[in-house]
């Protein structure tokens, strides 16, 4: 499995970059075109829901998964200095429709981490 890729997000362009990295990884793992689109769109939709690259800074961590004989893509968005943990809650619900798993963690120091996973079926 490939090493995790970390994309610092300071601007919207960085979100595009993250989306591209996710799509490339999904293709490499063997996702079909539609599933590549789903997980890539989930990434940018998640970043947008979190206002990442807009009012907040942070990073996107893209990782290939292998567990219980199946492969998948994991994308974690970490947001620094969040002052409103309700941000994008509606959009997060929309993102969940595109992937298999979505978890939200409130971390110390006002950090928020949202992780999505899409499995290869």
């Amino acid at each position, binding site marked *: 499995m490939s090493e995790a890729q970390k994309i610092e997000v300071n601007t919207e362009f960085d979100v595009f970059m993250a989306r591209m990295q996710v799509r490339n990884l999904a293709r490499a793992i063997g996702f079909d075109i539609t599933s590549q689109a*789903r997980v890539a769109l989930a990434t940018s939709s998640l970043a*947008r829901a979190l206002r990442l690259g807009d009012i907040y800074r942070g990073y996107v961590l893209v990782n290939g998964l292998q567990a219980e004989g199946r492969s998948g893509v994991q994308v974690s968005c970490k947001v620094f200095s969040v002052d409103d943990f309700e941000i994008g809650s509606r959009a997060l619900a929309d993102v969940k*429709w595109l992937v298999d798993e979505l978890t939200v963690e409130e971390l110390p120091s006002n950090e928020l981490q949202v992780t999505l996973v899409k499995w290869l079926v």
Partner: protein
Amino acid sequence: MKEDSKTVLIVEDSPAQALALEQLLEDHGLKVLWAADGQAGVALAREHMPDVIVLDIEMPRMGGFEACRILKEDARTADIPVVMFTIRDDAMTALRGIDLGAVDFIPKDAFSNTVLLETLRQLHILPEATGAPDALPQKPRNKAGNAGLPGRATTGPEQGG
């Protein structure tokens, strides 16, 4: 252009964006048709049976979602892959396109051409790449987007509509 070139139908209301796509695809040896709205796009698809349709969403007269629905309900065109190629990239919009039968949903950004070419390879519209990527991602120089005059498109909005 080879006689056996695959045909791509671009349904896009922006002549500048259609021209840029046309240039990109022709540079890769594909035949290109253009319709400027969904209604004309459906008519051209039925007439020419392209190998793939690249469909914008927001267009006059008939948008991409409605065009996609009609194409997928018509037995003649149902099997033609539809790629949504759009400025919108929110989850719900993407899901709607995919639910209507689009095979891919590509937001227009700095990487969209690269993604589109890769999708066309995976659909076997283009041969597999053997060398460097076609268009390395790079930061856009300005917000203006594509340049060009709207005169070279193969088929304009009034045809086939």
